[in-house]
Structures are given as C-alpha cells and as structure tokens.
C-alpha cells in the first residue's frame, strides 16, 4: 500500500483519538476544578441553614433556602411535565402508530421546541405571570420550568416507547383491549424504566436551569411556604454570590456549585442505571 495513505490515516486516527479522549479530560477537569474550589468551604451549616442577617457580608448561615426552593420548583415542574408529557408520548406511540406522517411531524415539532432557549421561556413566563396578576413566585417558576422540560420529557419517553416491538402492541389489541388500555396497561409498563429515565432527565434540567427562573421565581432568603411566595434557586444562589466582592461569599458560591454538581451527578448516574437496558441514546 501507498505509504502516504498510511501516514494520512495515522495522522487522522490520532487526531480523532485525541479529540475523543479530550472530552473525558474536559469532564474531569471541570468537575475537579469545581470540587477543588468548593470542598474547602463546604460545611454542614451550608446545607442545613438558611442565610442569616449578615450572610452576604460573610456572616453565618447557609443556602438551605436555595436548595429547598430548587427542589420545590424542579419537583413541581416535573409533576406538571408528567401530567402533560406522559399521555402525550403514549398517544403518539399508540393511537398514532399507523399515521407515520403525523407522528413524524409531531416529533419534528417537539424537537424544534426542545431547541428554544430557556431565556425565551423565561421571558414568556414573565409575560404570562404579569397577565395572570402574579408576582415573582414559586408558582410562576414552576409553570415556566414545566414549559421548558415537558418537550424533553416527551421526546425521551417517546424514544423508548418507539423501540418497543410492534408485536406486543398488536398482541394487546388482538386480546380485545382498546388503544387506551394498550397505552396505559401495556406500553407504559413495558417502557416504565424509560419513563423513569425521562422523568429524571427532566428533573435534572429543571433543577439546573437558571435563565427561566431568573424572571419568574425571584429570590429570597426565606424558605417558601406558599405557592405565591418567591423562591430562591440553587443556580441563582451561585450566580448572585459569585458576583459579590466579598471573598467569603464567593467561596460559598463555589461550595454551592459543588452541591449542585453533586446533585446533577447523582441524577445522571441514576438515570443511566435505569436506561442501561436501552441502547439508543437520546439527544440532549
């Protein structure tokens, strides 16, 4: 064989290999840096107490308000996403299974929805909030985040459902069950681990997104007790503390970033163990 060809092949193979391994390096680098800066000021107080009066000048307290606020918003939004997303995904895969064109059109559209940036959802949520006469509140944050994560949930669940063999579906219909019974009793059960993966993915996106809650959920040092109260969120806690000129407060931003990273890692790994059965990956 021609020597030049082999040299070219080796050069490009090496380049490709470097590019791939650099991704592992990148991930390790990001996580290490965040942990390295954050672990120092991570303490039990950070995760068990809301900020006290002098917190933003380096005083006592923690970011419990943001952790709880983020959990409330992500859980609320995920519930709404399940209520709308689960039946929608089932409908696409059961009732519309014969109408391939319509199915594809809907998927096409949902993928495009997925691409809308969260800041646009945030601006829309803000408009909606004013129109409904609400102020920055937990409820407004939940609705906005729900809008953001529902397409993600549907498409992830839909990918799993569409991989279920047609035979199972037909067998269920042949036994005399209706489309709806097939959807909830057969397809949902068969795709349940995919459903959990979709829920976890949506939850992870909800807890980590900042641009959508910036307008709508507001920020407060208190732990919200009602849907119409504002709520702090973890990403915004990081963002606001980082812009403080006081070094102690910045250190805590790093600690908060460490907490958020740990939460996201746990969610990703759990989602992975659930989705291990399904070899097809989802586009994020």
């Amino acid at each position, binding site marked *: *064989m021609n020597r030049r*060809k082999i040299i*070219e*092949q080796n050069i*490009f*193979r090496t*380049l*490709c290999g470097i*590019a*791939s391994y*650099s*991704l*592992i390096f*990148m991930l390790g680098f*990001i996580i290490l*840096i965040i942990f390295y800066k954050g672990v120092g000021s991570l303490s039990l107080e950070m995760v068990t107490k809301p900020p006290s009066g002098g917190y933003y000048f380096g005083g006592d307290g923690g970011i419990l308000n943001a952790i709880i606020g983020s959990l409330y918003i992500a859980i609320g939004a995920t519930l709404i996403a399940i209520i*709308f*997303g689960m*039946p*929608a995904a089932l*409908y696409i895969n059961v009732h519309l299974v014969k109408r391939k064109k319509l199915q594809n059109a*809907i998927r096409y*559209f949902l*993928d*495009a*929805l997925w*691409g*809308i*940036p969260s*800041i*646009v*959802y945030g*601006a*829309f949520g803000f*408009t*909606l909030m004013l129109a409904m006469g609400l102020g920055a509140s937990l409820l407004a944050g939940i609705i906005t985040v729900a809008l953001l994560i*529902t397409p993600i949930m549907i498409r992830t669940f839909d990918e799993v459902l569409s991989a279920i063999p047609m035979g199972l579906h037909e067998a269920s219909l042949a036994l005399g069950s*209706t*489309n*709806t*019974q097939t*959807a*909830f009793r057969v397809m949902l059960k068969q795709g349940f681990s995919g459903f959990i993966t979709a829920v976890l993915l949506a939850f992870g996106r909800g*807890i*980590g*997104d*900042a*641009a959508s809650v910036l*307008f709508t959920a507001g920020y407060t040092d208190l732990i919200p007790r009602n849907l119409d109260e504002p709520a702090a969120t973890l*990403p915004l806690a990081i*963002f606001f503390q980082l812009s403080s000129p006081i070094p102690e407060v910045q250190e805590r931003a790093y600690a908060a*970033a460490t907490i958020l990273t740990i939460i*996201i890692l746990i969610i*990703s*790994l759990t*989602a*992975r163990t659930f989705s291990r059965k399904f070899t097809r*990956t989802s*586009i*994020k």
Partner: protein
Amino acid sequence: MLKTGTVWKQLSSGWMVSSLTVILSIPFLIGVALLIKSTPLFSSQSLWQLIGTSEWAPSEGRFGFLPFIFSSFYVTILSFLFAAPVCLLSAIYLTQFASPRLSTIMHPVIDILAGIPSVIYGVWGILIIVPFISQVAAPLFGTTSPGYSILAGGIVLAVMCIPYMLNMLIETFRTVPVGLREAALSLGATGWESVKHVVIRKSISGIISSFGLGLAKAFGETLAVMMVVGNMVRLDANPFQAGYPLPALIANNYGEMLSIPRYDSALMFAAFLLLVIILIINLVFRYFIYKAQKV
C-alpha cells in the same frame, strides 16, 4: 364494569389529546405573546432602526439592537469554530475506530457533560478561562484583555455545545450502512479513506444539520456566557474585548425594565428575535435530518 370502562376510556383519551394539543401550541403562544408585548416599540422606531442601529439609550427611548446581535453572532461563530472540529473528529473516532469499551465509557461522559447546568460552566469559565485569557492568551497575541471577553464566552460556549452536537453527529454516522464502508475497504481503501470518501460524504447533510442545530443552541445560551463575556455595549471586532449578547441583555436588565418606559417592550423584542432566529434554524435543519433519515 363496562360503563366505567368507557368513561375511563373517554376521559383518558381526552386527556391524551388535550395534553398533546397544549404542548404543540406552546411555541405559537410564546411567539404571539412576545410579539404583542413588543409592539409599543414599533410606534417610535421602525424594524430596520431597531436591528440596524447601534445607539442604546433606554432612558431616552432609543433602542439599537445591532451591538447585541453582533455580539451574539460573534460569540456563537467563535464557539462553533472551536467545537465543530472536536465534535466531528471524536464522532468519527467513536463510531468508526473506537473499541466497544471506549464507547461504553464515552456514553456517560457525554451525557454528564450535557447535563451539567450552565451556571456550573460559568463558574468554571470564571475560574479557568477568564484568568487564562487575561494572563496567557492576550499577552501571547500582544494585546491586553480584562479576561471577561468575547473569546472567553466563545470557549465556554464551545465546551457546552460539544456534547449536544456530538450526540447528533454520532446518530448521523450510525445511520451510514456498514456495507458501504466495507465496499470501500474491499476496493483497497484505507480505513481513513473509507471514512473520508464514504462515511462523511454519505452523511454530509446530517453533519451540516448537526452543526446548524449546535449553532442555534449556542445562540440562545444565557447564563454561562453572561458570566464570562463582560457585558459591555460595543461594536468591536477584537475578541479580547467584552461584548454583550442578546440573551445576556434580557437576563441582566429584567430588574429595571418595568421602571423605564418601553424598556420592557425592548427586552421582549429581544426575546422574540431570539425565538424567531432559533426556531427557524431548528425547523430548517431538523427538516434536513428527517429527510436524511428517511433515505
């Protein structure tokens, strides 16, 4: 029994249909709402004045979006230049050359990279990229830089977009039939030649689409960019200086937008611009992908 069955059936299928309808109507609702909110802006300035001029003085009622649009495109294209080669090369490696073991390691890596929230990328950018630019990169090119710059935004954005583009590229390359590649190999092509002449050529529309969607994703990214880009209104081609992309404009000024007349309309118009640009890019390139997958 039969009766409750039918009621349940109607209830649940109604639930399914209405959920789907609600979700599919969201983009129209968003577009209409943002457009209505931004109409007061058009009473004093034409569309061309809005997007073609660069004077930004909200308190005097003058809104020129050009610097923001310019910064947005600048950051996006810069990030694309960094991310695209890495994505293309590693997608080729992972689908054509890599051992199955590496692929099983890479999947969670890509997933986790995609799942890291943008604020974490922002913190990382402030800790690593910003000092790197002001202390290493700028002196290397013989200029000075505050660090918080277009270039910093581009680099952070590139890292964020890599998992997104890479996933789509991998999907694209997977659809190329193995037989095609084997045919090239049996004709005496080297492994790389079969990739260059067969795999890439066969999936060219998928590659372009993945790149397009990656650009759209980068265009709308807010928080991470905003944290490192400097946020100064200016039209400057120097990547070592600060910029001010559209999403950052919206996110930074929501607090004061209700106190200055027409400021809220201006920000909603910015959101509308983002929505339109990104939705168009998405619809066009997604269409290519669907066409390519059918063939």
